[in-house]
């Protein structure tokens, strides 16, 4: 089956094909899910090298669990975000909290001038630094809600919390981010 033919299939359907040995499904899942897992791990860890290790391990766990995947119990992405967050927690505990950011390769965007790209990267770096200073659970809730744009009920499932607890974590996290970033708005090009 060609890769394009699988683009309409759900993650769960692809995982079932994967478990039956379909190599095109393996490729489709890799291309679809790895960027999400890597980005999430990076936002929780703030370091690309460690984010890659975590993303590879999370994907490996998905491959291993595929034959025993119970249909309808959880979304594949929900499961992956949970596994990724747990792996990141282990990493953070091992290394301690504060570490400098690695340089992140800038995605190529032809429609953006180099000056705009630099400013965008500066804003993203400022946000990442502020995220790194948050307590771990607040950081995770804010990232899932406002960067990954996932709904609160699913975040509650990922984090094993009630929706109210997620809302509370997100509100506290955003308050801390506003305080950290508010003074840098002008420096980062926000004049409104």
């Amino acid at each position, binding site marked *: 089956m060609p890769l394009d033919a699988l683009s309409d299939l759900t993650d769960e359907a692809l995982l079932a094909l*994967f478990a039956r040995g379909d190599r095109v499904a393996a490729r489709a899942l890799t291309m679809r899910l790895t*960027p999400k897992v*890597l980005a999430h791990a990076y936002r929780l860890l703030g370091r690309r090298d460690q984010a890659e290790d975590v993303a590879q391990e999370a994907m490996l766990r998905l491959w*291993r669990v595929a*034959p025993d995947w119970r249909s309808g119990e959880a979304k594949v992405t929900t499961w992956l975000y949970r596994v990724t967050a747990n792996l990141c927690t282990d990493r953070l505990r091992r290394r301690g909290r504060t570490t400098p950011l690695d340089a992140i390769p800038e995605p190529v965007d032809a429609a953006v001038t180099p000056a705009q790209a630099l400013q965008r*990267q500066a804003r993203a770096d400022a946000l990442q630094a502020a995220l790194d200073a948050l307590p771990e659970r607040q950081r995770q809730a804010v990232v899932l809600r406002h960067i990954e744009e996932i709904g609160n009920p699913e975040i509650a499932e990922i984090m094993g919390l009630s929706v109210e607890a997620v809302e509370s974590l997100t509100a506290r996290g955003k308050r801390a981010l506003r305080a950290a970033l508010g003074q840098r708005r002008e420096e980062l090009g926000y004049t409104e």
Partner: protein
Amino acid sequence: MTGRREDHDPGLDPFFDAARQTAPQPEADFLARVLADAEAAQIRTTALPAHRWRARLAELGRALGGWPAMAGLSTAAVAGLWIGIAPPAMLLAQVDGWLGAAGPLVIDAEPVTMVLLTEEAM
């Protein structure tokens, strides 16, 4: 992905937008490593492990009537094999009787020999 507008935050949204636009993209060699893991896992999980072979044999045994039937089947198979290797004299005499007095039946599998024999007879 749902309803971010409900909790729109003009102070922070530009930062969140910048984070999304600069999300780290997986490089080709990293994707290749993930895919290699996937294919290795597929090979391991789709090969039938020994315990699954045993389970399938047990299932076949049950389908044929369980261990008593399997024991009877095995006994019959062994007896058949033994009769083939060392047939009792009584059995040979009986078979000769069924085939008549024409003597032993010879089947030559080589057509060339058969043709030569036929020509000699003519």
